[in-house]
């Protein structure tokens, strides 16, 4: 018997996902929210890899490659937005982003 099974892998993926979710929902700094979103994306991809490893196909790994591509594009655009927010407010707190200005 070993501990590297699909059930344990899925539970690990869910725990890491929930940790990232806690970071997104409780932090007020925009950079920390982006970091927590990266943790969530990684753990969701890890669940795909676990499923692919136990079906014996390479499709789980391929799905993780595409999740990584999406995460890279999202991080670059998100960080550009962080730069714009900092230029506007001199502070990265999301409390500044409460009102939409036309």
């Amino acid at each position, binding site marked *: *018997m*070993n*501990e*590297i*099974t*699909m*059930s344990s*892998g*899925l*539970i*690990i993926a*869910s*725990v*890491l996902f*929930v*940790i990232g*979710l*806690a*970071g997104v929902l*409780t932090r007020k*700094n925009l*950079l*920390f929210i*982006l*970091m*927590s979103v*990266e*943790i969530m994306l*990684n753990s969701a991809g*890890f669940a795909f*890899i*676990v499923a*692919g*490893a136990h079906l*014996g*196909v*390479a499709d*789980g*790994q*391929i799905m*993780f*490659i*595409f999740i*990584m*591509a*999406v*995460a*890279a*594009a*999202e*991080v*670059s*655009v998100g*960080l*550009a937005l*962080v*730069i*714009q927010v*900092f230029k506007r407010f001199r502070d*990265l707190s999301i409390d500044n982003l409460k009102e939409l200005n036309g």
Partner: protein
Amino acid sequence: MRAHLQMLKTCYLNVMNVLFVISLIIALVASLKVITGTNAVHALLYMVAFFFSLAVMIYLYGAPFIAALEVIIYAGAIVTLFIFVVMMLNLKAQEKKKRIKLPFLPLVLIIAIQVELVYLIFSGPVNVNEPVFTSPEATGLALISNYMAAIELAGMLLLAGIIGAYHLGSEKKKNLHRYLSNTGDNE
């Protein structure tokens, strides 16, 4: 559920198991330090530790290509982007607090979600097989033969990301000409 607990009772002291548990503990501690950090650079270094430990876990699940890609792309490129932004904005001067106070109600709801997920996973069938090792060669062949359209679409997505990030990060020029204003007609 009982079958799952029966399965957990018989675990042997394997090298792979010990490595898996060590990297799992590092991943949990590092992710908790990321979400409760005050210093942005410290949190990014904990995130690098998280990515490395996750790469070890991915390798132990029979996906060596993805483990290498995780280190190269996540810990090597995405964290570098974060660090560039932190250094450029010079965020060290912003931190005043020493501890982050996490509010109570979101944590209760998040623990409820975690309990639901664990219940869903335990209500499925028990899987005790070893992970199947998939070589990088097989992964690459499957990627190119079956998922060519998705490769092209991912390329287009990354192109859109590059162009968007460039335009969002560029500064507007102050003075084009003496007689022209910034908010021109063809803006």
